């Protein structure tokens, strides 16, 4: 037996790769494309077969035609681009305000923990509320103008930014702070050179989550007497059973959210390349 074993050829080691159980390995993006493709195919099959009336689900071709007319002629006195721009402007304003208030406030809370006990109940009170619940109150207090719309989105972004910043400041390694102090850092230098950069990965994560929350509040915000915006476009089309425009609006909102997310992930990699590295 043992002699025979010597004669046996040494099995050549296959190139190291994960087991795929016979499924041809696909790149992640290929899987994702396949998933989107099959969804489109299902959509096409459902509408082409006539199983679902066009009123409920317009065909992909009809939606494409509508897209063209939306871009060229527009809907409700504004083109798709103008609706998109109106929504993005609201988002940007709300984001700037949320970062401008949330980050400094988060740092203050992180540095002075007493402040946290005071602000925590307020934040935790409003954070889980659905924006539609306090929307009427905002309209009563701030009217039906642009302020109310931006305010609603701002509130949605503020909570995650504030919480992430507070957490980021609190989790800056105390050894790094001690090292800076023993090299002669003043309180201001410590904040600028150690605490802020140390909290940056968390702050960026907070902004990412906040943008997602803000964008999903958009439709609610544009319920308030808007004349432009993707959310407004969807709602007014729904009142006239313009299902094709509703579908287009949904796709546009999803695409923008996807691009924002990718952009922020990119930003995070560029600004905080050390994030997630063992240190």
């Amino acid at each position, binding site marked *: 037996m043992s002699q025979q074993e010597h004669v046996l050829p040494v099995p050549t080691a296959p190139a190291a790769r994960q087991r795929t159980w016979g499924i041809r390995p696909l790149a992640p993006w290929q899987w994702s494309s396949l998933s989107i493709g099959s969804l489109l195919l299902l959509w096409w099959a459902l509408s082409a077969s006539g199983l679902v009336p066009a009123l409920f689900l317009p065909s992909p071709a009809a939606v494409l035609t509508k897209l063209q007319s939306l871009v060229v002629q527009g809907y409700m006195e504004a083109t798709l681009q103008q609706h998109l721009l109106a929504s993005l402007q609201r988002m940007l304003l709300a984001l700037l305000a949320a970062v401008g208030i949330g980050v400094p406030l988060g740092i203050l809370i992180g540095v002075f923990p007493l402040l946290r006990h005071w602000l925590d109940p307020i934040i935790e009170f409003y954070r889980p509320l659905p924006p539609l619940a306090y929307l009427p109150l905002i309209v009563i207090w701030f009217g039906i103008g642009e302020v109310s719309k931006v305010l609603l989105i701002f509130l949605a972004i503020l909570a995650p930014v504030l919480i992430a910043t507070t957490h980021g400041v609190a989790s800056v390694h105390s050894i790094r702070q001690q090292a800076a102090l023993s090299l002669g850092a003043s309180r201001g230098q410590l904040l600028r*050179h150690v605490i802020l950069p140390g909290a940056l990965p968390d702050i960026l994560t907070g902004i990412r989550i906040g943008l997602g929350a803000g964008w999903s509040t958009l439709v609610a915000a544009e319920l308030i007497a808007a004349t432009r915006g993707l959310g407004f476009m969807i709602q007014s089309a729904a009142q006239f059973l313009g299902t094709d425009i509703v579908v287009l609006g949904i796709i546009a909102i999803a695409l923008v959210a996807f691009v924002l997310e990718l952009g922020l992930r990119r930003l995070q990699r560029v600004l905080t390349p050390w994030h997630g590295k063992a240190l």
Partner: protein
Amino acid sequence: MSLLQVDKLTVHYPGQPLPALQQVSLGLSPDELLVALGPSGCGKSTLLNVLAGFIAPTHGTVQFDGKPVSGPGAERAVVFQNDGLLPWLDVAGNVAFGLKLQGVPAAQRAAIVADTLQQVGLADAGGKRVWELSGGMRQRVGIARALASQSRVLLMDEPFGALDAFTREQMQQLLLNVWQRSQRGVFLITHDIEEALFLATSLVLMSPGPGRIVQYLRPTFSQRFLAGESVRAIKSDPEFITLREELLASLTRTQHEEAA
């Protein structure tokens, strides 16, 4: 003459039955490499933290250059076991950090950084990211950072405790060479008997429960290394081994006394 002087220092943490340090007195002069050796719980970390200014004494005084220590300061740079480097700065940026805080002009900073990196054997690593470095290299950067800042003493908190044996021995030799050139007092804490004997020009043996100094020694092995003797020859010298065993016996005895 002592640059850093500790007199009858007692540190008692609230809620603890025994003081972490009781009536500890010692001095560090500018040409000295003072090592505090002891098991965990002997108060050596507390002592270092008091010298650094991170912890205030309960009783007793700590003076630097005749003035009481009231907090962390640039004249007493600390080298940590877990380096505490800033990952958003590259290696050169980390080494320059102390100088930048003190407002040293960029050109002067660059010259000091280049010279210091050379001293710790990282002449070509200035542009590297700190997370690309091995543990030993990170510790070199930590030492370079403390050296480059215009500190007058270095406080080293078990600086080689997390390194493998081979790298640790390399770093011990590097430290002796750097110390000889820098003309700065070094206070180093460790629980490694060989390391303490090899590095120290003055050695205090500490014991727990309450933390105190139980023995003073003046080993000469670091001078022999700097005079050209090899590290292996020194560490296998019967005199070195005898002292090592005596210290070990002494440590074991105090641990037994504490247990009893």
